[in-house]
């Protein structure tokens, strides 16, 4: 049985935890740690927020040239 997980170890496992790819025993050790550590709980929550906010990013605006090219392409297709 390995010792208690440290905060420094935990922060490097957050992505694997969120992606559901941690081995069961590691996930258990991580959850044991989280239940007693506000700092790591906040860290995990901040990572979740980060992912959510990144998901809110909209595409950069197209340049007028790109927009023109793509619309021309669309109209050519539409005519046929």
């Amino acid at each position, binding site marked *: 049985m390995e010792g208690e997980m*440290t905060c420094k170890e935990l922060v490097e496992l957050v992505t694997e935890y969120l992606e559901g790819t941690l081995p069961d025993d590691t996930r258990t050790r991580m959850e044991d740690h989280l239940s007693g550590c506000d*700092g790591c709980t906040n860290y995990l*929550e901040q990572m979740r927020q980060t992912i959510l*906010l990144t*998901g809110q990013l909209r595409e*950069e605006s*197209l340049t007028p040239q790109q927009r023109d090219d*793509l619309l021309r392409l669309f109209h050519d297709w*539409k005519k046929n």
Partner: protein
Amino acid sequence: MDAKLDEMALLNLLRQRDEMAFTQLVEQYHTSLVRLARMYVQDMTTAEEVAQETWLAVLHGLDRFEGRSSLKTWIFTILTNKAKTRSQRENRTVSYTDVEELLYASREPTVDPKRFKDPLADKNPDHWAAAPDSWAGIPEDRSLSQETMNLIRETIDALPENQRLVITLHDRDELSTQEICNILGISETNQRVLLHRARAKVRQALEDYLQAEF
């Protein structure tokens, strides 16, 4: 366009040659497509061409598209195939991931070691010395502000290319890990390392920014 159309609705409109539907789709994916194409071809002009060829193929293929994959996945797959064909024509070998660099990077901490207690000086080493705060009290109009979005965009733009692609495809375009690995030709483990490092940098930037006036 505020209300985002779901894929089925979008597909039906596209088949009716609806310009708004096409515009929504290109606004959403064109820049990602160009960026991805750029991994394979020499320059931005060629990448732009490959992305345009992709849209043309999408439009012409609409009636044959059976919906066995999502529309998004289908578009990205067409792009990847076209970009690969073009790169072979240009005799460019794709050396996408420098494995040694990745292995080295995967051992580098993603959180500043100074935020943890000193292993030599403290009886509770490697636990937080400067623990992160909760963001629960930050109002949405701040966390979702244009300024916050710009910060995220700038942080992602400053990442190494492979991290930038993975976080964009995974967390913004919401492709699955499997799809991203197929598209980029990397293993799931490497994909997660890149994703982890990218997210950690965006989180750090957000922490610095959101808590500056907190």
